[in-house]
Structures are given as structure tokens and as C-alpha cells.
């Protein structure tokens, strides 16, 4: 069992996938000799050369569009958007094109591709290097949206993602790249899209999270357990679309209380959909209101350290909300 960081998990799995599948190319800004600004593609260029590790022009629209074209013509491209904040120039190509190609052609022209993008705050990135953008895509039928937060999940989900015949958005929390270390099984495994993972067991309340919020929620839960005897069950979504309602509902049947935490702006975030589903389908099981803790509704994470901390879903803030829920 190897111990890896999230970043190593991404890098090693990309390497493995490119070895395994001839038709996978990696493309994006600075993914070549530079190995990506976060070094997620380091070593790929030396190993596979410029035909399979393509430094693109500085143009996200066409990074995605060219990936779509390559997907139509036999490839399974893995495109990198350098920061999730810069995915919007490609929005039309992702939403109107990639997501709709299969449906609009009645299945004739699927576009299997992966778009990787580092997202999230906590790296002093300010308004434009910290954004969480997943909710723009979870609303779009035709897109898979993944947000794994541990090395093991990154490996298993990336291996699966490259085998599904449709576009996948693969969001990697950049603050966790070097921060999170974890075990990666030596034996080959895959993780199916749409399977959440219970990262901590507990009977009092259920907490649903992903990304930095997941790790902070675990910290908060451990503290609350120690100090106040509140036992939280922490569900790591890993996959946002498909959403594993089965696992969420099962936990909720046990606890009767649920909190959804994410870093993305709370209003209209993915947590809203999860809360709405629960409110409709689990009404009789609820012992307390469905609670959410999302990012404040300001335009992304500010730069100055205290302001950035104010924005982020850190353990103390989550613990406060968990306590409120437990005491309800």
C-alpha cells in the first residue's frame, strides 16, 4: 500500500491511463515540459511526447472544442483547465456542445472526454484562483461531475472516468493537492461514478460534504466527538453527478438529521439540490430541518488571509453548525 498525496494520485493515474489506453491524450496550458502549473502532468511529456501531451494555446474555448473533435475521431482526451475559474470561456462548448452531442444526435455522436480542473480556495488565490464552479455543471444533463478528495478516490474515479463514454468534469481541490496524504491500494481497482463513501461513522447526525469541506468536516466531527460526544456520520460524495441518494438516505434514516457542507457559494449550490431532494423524499424521516453550510454569497474567495479564512468552510464553522443540528 503506497502513501500518496492527492497530487501524486492524479499524476500517477494519468501516467497509468496513458500507458493503458493509446487513445488518451492530455492537453492544456503548460501541461507539456512544464508539467502543469501544479505539476499534475509532470513526467508525461518526457514519457509520451508532444503528440500525446499537448501544450495548447491560451484558449479554453478551443481546448474543450478541440477535445470534442478528437473525441469524435477516436480519442479520449483529458483536457486540463489550469484553474476552474478559467473554465467559463469554454462554457458554451461544454454545456451547449459536449453535454448535448449524444442527445442531439440520438446517440450517434457521443463525446467521451475528461475535463480536469483544480478548484477551491485556501491558497491565497483571491477571486480568480479559488472558485468552486461545480454547480454550473451539475445542473446540466449530459455531464458527469466528480469531486474526489482523497488519493484513493482520485485514483479509482479517474480510472473509471476514462472508461465512461460521455463527458466528465473532474474537479480537484487545489488546497488538498499537497495537504492530503493517504493510502492507495496496490491492487488495481476502480470506483464507480455515483457511489458516495462514508468516511466516518456516527449515529447522531449525517454530514454530506466533498472537497476541502470534507476534510474540515472530519476534523470538526472528531473534535465534537471528543469534546461533546456528538457522533457525526460523514458522507463523502466524491461523485456529484450521479448523486448517491441511496447512501445519503440510508444514513439519514439512522440519524434523522442532516447537514450539507460545501465551499461553493451556498445559494444555488449543489447543496440546494441535495437539500431539496431530501426535503421532498425524506420528509417523514427528518427530525430537524435540512441544514446547509455553503460559502458566503460574495463573488468568490477574497485574497487577504483573514478574509479568505472567513470564506472557507473551516472546521470551527462546521462544528458550530453540527452542534446546532445535533441540539435541534
Amino acid at each position, binding site marked *: 500500500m503506497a502513501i500518496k498525496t492527492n497530487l501524486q494520485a492524479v499524476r500517477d493515474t494519468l501516467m497509468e491511463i496513458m500507458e493503458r489506453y493509446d487513445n488518451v491524450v492530455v492537453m492544456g496550458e503548460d501541461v507539456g515540459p512544464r508539467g502543469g502549473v501544479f505539476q499534475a502532468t509532470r513526467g508525461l511529456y518526457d514519457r509520451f511526447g508532444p503528440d500525446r501531451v499537448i501544450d495548447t494555446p491560451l484558449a479554453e474555448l478551443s481546448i474543450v*472544442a478541440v477535445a470534442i473533435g478528437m473525441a469524435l475521431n477516436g480519442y479520449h482526451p483529458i483536457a486540463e483547465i489550469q484553474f476552474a475559474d478559467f473554465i467559463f470561456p469554454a462554457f458554451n462548448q461544454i454545456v451547449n456542445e459536449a453535454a448535448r452531442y449524444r442527445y442531439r444526435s440520438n446517440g450517434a455522436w457521443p463525446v467521451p472526454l475528461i475535463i480536469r480542473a483544480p478548484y477551491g480556495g485556501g491558497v491565497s488565490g483571491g477571486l480568480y484562483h479559488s472558485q468552486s464552479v461545480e454547480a454550473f455543471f451539475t445542473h446540466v444533463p449530459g455531464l458527469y461531475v466528480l469531486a474526489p478528495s482523497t488519493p484513493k478516490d482520485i485514483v479509482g474515479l479517474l480510472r473509471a472516468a476514462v472508461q465512461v463514454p460521455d463527458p466528465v468534469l473532474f474537479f480537484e481541490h487545489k488546497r488538498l493537492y499537497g495537504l492530503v496524504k493517504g493510502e492507495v491500494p496496490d491492487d488495481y481497482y476502480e470506483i464507480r461514478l455515483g457511489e458516495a463513501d462514508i468516511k466516518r461513522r456516527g449515529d447522531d447526525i449525517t454530514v454530506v460534504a466533498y472537497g476541502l469541506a470534507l476534510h474540515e468536516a472530519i476534523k470538526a466531527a472528531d473534535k465534537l466527538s471528543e469534546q461533546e460526544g456528538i457522533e457525526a456520520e460523514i458522507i463523502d460524495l466524491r461523485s456529484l453527478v450521479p448523486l448517491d441518494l441511496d447512501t445519503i438516505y440510508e444514513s439519514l434514516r439512522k440519524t434523522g438529521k442532516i447537514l450539507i457542507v460545501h465551499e461553493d457559494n451556498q445559494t444555488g449550490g449543489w447543496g440546494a439540490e441535495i437539500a431539496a431532494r431530501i426535503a421532498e423524499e425524506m420528509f417523514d424521516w427528518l427530525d430537524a430541518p435540512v441544514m446547509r453550510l455553503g460559502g458566503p454569497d460574495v463573488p468568490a474567495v477574497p485574497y487577504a488571509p483573514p478574509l479568505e479564512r472567513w470564506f472557507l468552510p473551516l472546521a470551527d464553522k462546521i462544528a458550530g453548525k453540527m452542534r446546532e443540528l445535533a441540539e435541534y
Partner: protein
Amino acid sequence: MTKRQKRPSDELSDEQLLEMYYYMVLSRKLDERMWILNRQGKASFHISGIGHEAIQVAQGFAMRKGHDWYFPHYRDIATCLILGVTPRHMMLALMGKEGDIFSRGRQMPEHFSYKPAKIVSVSSPVATAIPQAAGTALASKLQGKDEVTIVGFGEGATSEGDFHEGLNWAGIHKLPIVFVCQNNQYAISVHVSKQMAVENVADRAVAYGIRGVVVDGNDVLASYDVMKEAIDRARRGEGPTLVEAKTYRPVPHSTADDDRSYRSREEVEAWKKRDPILLFEKVLMERGLLDEAKKQEVLDRVMAEVDDAVDYALNQPYPPIESAAEGVFGDSPLVKWSKKGTING
């Protein structure tokens, strides 16, 4: 006196020339019928290729059918017919009927798609296909295949960022691709002079280090020459060409448009004298390949096909309602849905 250089169109046989003529007429008559069906309330929408048939037929004949990649302009009825789409297919799509091979009644008419002919699914947002076409071309090149990608669009679409980015990729990677702009001088009501400050769309090629060529898009043989050369060059690895076919749309933008607010009847009438079918008939007659009897023969054949297609399509059902919910994602054992029917299970 310098000897006239041999042109690609000189190699076309008499049969081929007459086939080109046939496709121009077929496309035109289908198209006219579609307008009528719309006016009769039997089709909610139609966007027309009338007046654009010369460049469309030219590119259809210049491509290697089923081998080259083709992202059509939405007006490219004639080209699609050449590549294997039938009049029945066109009429089924017009009415959104079961049997519509483009989208099974999901998309508006003229959103072509036909995988066996490598006709890639057309979407409505203009220009999006241009950088995608750079993608198929890049894939062909990296795989060492001698496929060429052809992508069509109007001059209005060249204002979108997609155009710039697609041509930029083509230039950087010297891709096997031909960009075909049908410059009909209007984007709905907006004249090309409000679309760009240059005379020719083709003048933009230089910004990407690629070839640009202007051709009379109403002259089918001139258009063929230019398209054939561009495609051959691309296939030989000599890089991309931006072809600008100057043409005109003598009808409104679509069945939803009324063009009287933005251009004079005189302008339209003047262009009708340069109708690509008229022009080609003159050539064929001069070459002794066409006379009135032969014209009537082609027309009869075409009208029979059009009538058949209309009758057939009118009598087809709509796709079943259940079909609308299907096929958002492909099946995969690596995906687990909590519940069926919505994207989130």
C-alpha cells in the same frame, strides 16, 4: 497566348457534371417544397440553402465521401444529399418525425447528422463547430490518417471567438482542414460591413498563417476547383485553407424571417439573375450536355423524389414520447444511478 492551366473541374466527366446539376436541382426543389410545407402549417421551421447550391455541390464532389470529416453549415442541404442523406431523411427531419436520422425529432430541421457519412451533428449556436473541426483534423493527423476535415459556416459566424480559436489551432498544427465560409453578405439582417472591417473573410487567413482563397460561390465549377485544390493540399499535408465562397441568399433568412426590413427588392432581384442553377445550366448547354428536354427529365425525376419524400414523411408518426427521455448518457457498468429517470438518480 499563354495556355490555360488545367483545372480540377476539367477532369469531371459528363456524367459527373450532370450529377452535379441533378443535385443542385434536387436540393432546390426539396428546399422550395419545405417553404411550402411551412406555409401550409406542416412544418414549423425551415432554414434554406436556396442560392447556395453551387458551393455546396462543389464541396460535396470535392470530398472523399464517408472518408473525410464534414461539419456542415446548416444551409448545406445539397452537400448532405450528395453524401448520402436522402430526400426522405430531409423531410422526416423537417417534420420531426420518427425515422429522422439526424436527431429523432429532437433538433430543428437542417441540423444534419449522419454518422455513416461522417456528417457530424450540427447544433444551432453558430461557429462552435469550427474549433471542433480542428479537433477531428488534429486526430486524423496524429493518427496518420489521410482524412480531411471540412467545416462550413456563414460570414456572420466569423465574428465569434470560436472562429479565431479554430483557425489558430489549424495554423499552429498545420492541420488537414478546409474552412468553408459561405459569405452571403447577411447574418439575418446584419450586413457584412457591420460584421467586419475587411473586404474579404479570406483576408483573415493571413492572421493564422494559413491560405485564404476567395471564389465565386455561385459558380459551381470555380467552386469545385478551389475546394478540390484545398482538400488535396490538406490531404497532402500542405496545411489548411480558408475558402470564402461569395454568394447571396435570395430568400429570407429562414421561414421565421421577413427580409424586407433590411434590404431592397432590387438588390434581391439583381442577385436572382446570378442564380447558381441558371449559371450552371448555361455552361452545360454551351457544352451540349443539357437542353430543354433533358432539363425537364431531371426536373421530373427530382419532383418524383420530392413528392415521394413528402408523402412518406407526412405519413410517419412522431417519435414515441418515451424516446425523449432516453439517451442522455450512454450505458456504462462503471456508473451507478441511485434512481432512474433523472440525472441524479
